[in-house]
């Protein structure tokens, strides 16, 4: 089995990473009751003998050895100390390898140029070393997951610098980026600059980007909180129609995790849990058994028709499970319908009314091939697929459900609707750029040129153009080339 390394950069990246490792441990603890170090565990964790100073790996062998001490295949990078050092004091500290960690004290000051150009060149060797360390522990490294935000300085700047480094040093290893885009009311003034500058790198260097918007996460959290029974109960609540939400089943929940006690839950935790679950669900089919496995390389192969158009809109359902265990089958169908509704997307967008280039359904739990086929038949008439890929569905069936749920669905869609989000971002960028506001903060940094701004804008424009050109083909199908004629 293959392994993946998670590279978490900046405050946002590290917070998501922290939730990810926590929930990954919870998931494996639920599946793997007898505490053996098996193949699926090895994809994200090393099993080490921690008696040594530099813990040595215990080989996987037949996958029947006991877990001694688990180390995450993670690389932590931040240009401030706060978040990382807090993690290193917290209950997850045992999981992280101190030798795969890089921090500075002064931060990147919300400036992409400081992160990318200054810290990048300053720490190049160091970053390369700690990544190599993580990579060398892998027997067959398949994928890097890079987690960072787009708005700040460290995440966007150093994160995309690392992406470049990975492309140079590990050209055959896939690079999946989970990028958190700033909300419209973001408190960082320069966030449009940082995002657009970073996006050029993502477009050129990543194999696949999962854009996430804070606004979308917030509304998902609100949706779940409305359904959840209030924590501090005064009166007993009787909930409406569907019955009560089963405890620990919401995708925002921390229940059963190692780290968080309900009392010291942080405000972003429930939002980050959603992103962490996205990563878990996406990799589940590569980690656990199932009747139709989807390996990570199949995701890009099937969902990326053109190399630059690798931005995937994701959605997850159900958000929680109702406590009533007598599930009518229509609730299973509801799961499929929900995943295509705009309220369930991790990006403020409406894929249903735009054009699909390709769509993957990653199902977990007790769902059969026939269920998936039935739902594809049912949903297909209401969705628009591009004329050369009208049957562009990829399905994965993993038999292990997520913790607390009996089944779940993750959709990954390459959909033209994303150009609206990019256009919004561009407008915000142009507003600042027209007046050259704050530009000098960037150009002061060595290596940063004005052309970086113009080229990034150009790159963004061309992405928007490419997606909207394809969208125009929705109602205006170009005549197809005639097939080759054979002389008989």
């Amino acid at each position, binding site marked *: 089995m293959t392994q993946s390394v998670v590279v978490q950069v900046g405050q946002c990246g590290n917070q998501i990473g922290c939730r990810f490792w926590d929930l990954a441990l919870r998931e494996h603890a639920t599946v793997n009751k007898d505490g053996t170090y098996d193949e699926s565990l090895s994809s994200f964790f090393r099993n080490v003998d921690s008696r040594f100073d530099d813990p040595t790996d215990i080989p996987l062998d037949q996958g029947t050895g006991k877990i001694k001490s688990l180390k995450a295949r993670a690389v932590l990078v931040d240009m401030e100390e706060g978040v990382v050092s807090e993690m290193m004091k917290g209950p997850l500290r045992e999981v992280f390898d101190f030798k795969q960690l890089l921090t500075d004290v002064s931060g990147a000051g919300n400036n992409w140029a400081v992160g990318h150009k200054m810290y990048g060149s300053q720490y190049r060797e160091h970053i390369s070393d700690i990544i190599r360390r993580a990579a060398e522990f892998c*027997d067959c490294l398949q994928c890097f997951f890079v987690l960072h935000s787009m708005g700040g300085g460290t995440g966007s700047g150093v994160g995309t610098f690392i992406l470049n480094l990975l492309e140079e040093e590990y050209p055959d290893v896939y690079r999946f980026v989970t990028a958190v885009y700033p909300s419209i009311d973001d408190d960082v003034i320069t966030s449009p600059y940082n995002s657009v500058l970073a996006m050029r790198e993502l477009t050129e260097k990543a194999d696949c980007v999962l854009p996430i918007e804070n606004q979308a996460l917030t509304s998902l959290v609100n949706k779940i909180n409305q359904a959840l029974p209030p924590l501090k109960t005064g009166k007993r609540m009787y909930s409406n129609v569907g019955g009560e939400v089963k405890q620990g089943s919401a995708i925002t929940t921390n229940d059963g995790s190692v780290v968080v006690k309900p009392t010291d839950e942080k405000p972003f935790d429930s939002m980050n849990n959603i992103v962490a679950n996205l990563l878990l669900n996406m990799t589940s089919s590569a980690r656990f058994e199932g009747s139709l496995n989807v390996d990570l390389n199949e995701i890009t192969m099937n969902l990326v028709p053109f190399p630059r158009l690798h931005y995937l809109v994701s959605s997850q359902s159900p958000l929680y499970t109702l406590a009533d265990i007598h599930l009518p089958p229509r609730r299973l169908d509801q799961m499929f319908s929900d995943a295509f509704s705009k309220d369930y997307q991790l990006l403020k967008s409406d894929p249903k009314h735009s054009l699909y280039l390709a769509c993957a359904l990653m199902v977990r739990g007790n769902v059969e091939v026939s269920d998936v086929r039935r739902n594809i038949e049912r949903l297909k008439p209401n969705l628009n697929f591009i004329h050369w890929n009208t049957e562009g569905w990829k399905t994965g069936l993993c038999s292990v459900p997520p913790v607390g749920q009996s089944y779940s669905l993750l959709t990954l869609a390459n959909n033209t609707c994303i150009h609206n989000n990019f256009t919004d971002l561009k407008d915000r960028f142009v507003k600042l750029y027209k007046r050259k506001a704050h530009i000098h903060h960037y150009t002061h940094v060595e290596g940063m040129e004005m052309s970086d701004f113009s080229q990034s804008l150009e790159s963004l424009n061309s992405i928007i153009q490419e997606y909207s050109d394809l969208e125009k083909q929705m109602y205006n199908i170009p005549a197809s080339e005639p097939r080759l004629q054979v002389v008989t």
Partner: protein
Amino acid sequence: MSVVTLQIGQCGNQVGGQLFAGLIEDTQTKLSQVNVSPKANNDYIEAVYDRFFTCSDKPGNLPEAKAVMVDMEPKAIAQTCYEAKKSGLWKYPENQQFYQKRGSGNNWAHGYKVHGPAAEERIMGMIQKEAEKCDNLSGFMTFMSLAGGTGSGVGTYITQCVKDEFPHAFLLNQVVWPYSMGEVIVQNYNAVLTLSHLYQCADAMLVMENDQLHKICSQLLNIKKIGFKDINKVICHKLMGVLLPALTEKHSGYETSNSLGEMLEHLAPMPDYKLLTIKNIPQMSDTSKVFSTYQWHGLLKHLRQMLIANAAMEEGIDWQVRLEDSRRSLANTLILRGKELDNIDTSHFSDPRLYPSWSLQDTNLSVYRQPRIFSNYDKCATLITNNKSPIVSLNSVIDKAWNMFSSRAYTHQYVKHGLNEEDFVDSFVVLEQVVASYNNL
């Protein structure tokens, strides 16, 4: 005459495993149920072992399948070997499994251009070793799918290598056609690339379509929740109908068996026509077998109409299609198994109107017989035909792939592994030629 099988990719390994299990199960049938003398039964079992298994002289050793297993990830091979071992009746030979850690990710070019050449030496070593175990090698049978990356890409590459290494052996590739929708998005590209390349090296391709097999499972066998295991069982039933021993009288007083070479020489006489399909009758669930009886006359009448109307199964045949409107076959092989084999009238299958006018009339049809009862069917008939029936699916696959290729969608994924756009065009040319040839029959 022995056959070495190559199981490539997840699908290939599952189908191969199922086939060997089925063959062994057939040899284990109780003498009271086979309707032949103990001597004939023993000869038959001997023939099955001789063809597909290596048996050692030491008592207590299980027969070993003459098979080389190839996959780019370990899961499917491990599962197949485990199931064989669990049966306690047969096993796979040791150290004849080749697997790696990382799959081909649905990418034909990754399998054909990267994994194939990298693994060539070791896989060919295993094939050589397996071939040397045979006293009399008749040919190779390869099991693979068209949709994925490993089966299609590596399978094609290895077939070419085998052709180079054993230029005189017969090569039959059994290919599983994917569902028309929902499995893999780039399946049409993979299918086009595989078929066009195989057309240049294999002697024939035996086509099995998942959509049709799925229908057989649901309508004839009444399976409610259909899994890939059920589909593989149907594939194996068809294959066994063809591959299990049977005899024909080639010249009067001289009988030959249905060896791979014998059948392929008959069925694929021209390089433009290499697509074979299997139609078999009857097919039903075990519980219904007890209550059914058949006459040869009725069975063959149905089978003939299945051929004429191009039906995949005995249910829902269109009886309106007349012989004159039907598409012609290049050649047919009919294999009859069961009771009352004497005096069966097979002349309907040698009707000259079934074949193109330019073909030699007395060589169009060959009929094999085997009195031993197969799979508890009193009488059963299997027809292998080289006719137009796969062309409908092939046409739609080319159509979809060409449409995608016009927009150059997904091509960069193939270019990345060293395939050119010209290679695509060449493949399209080959297959358009195939379609045109069959349409002219």
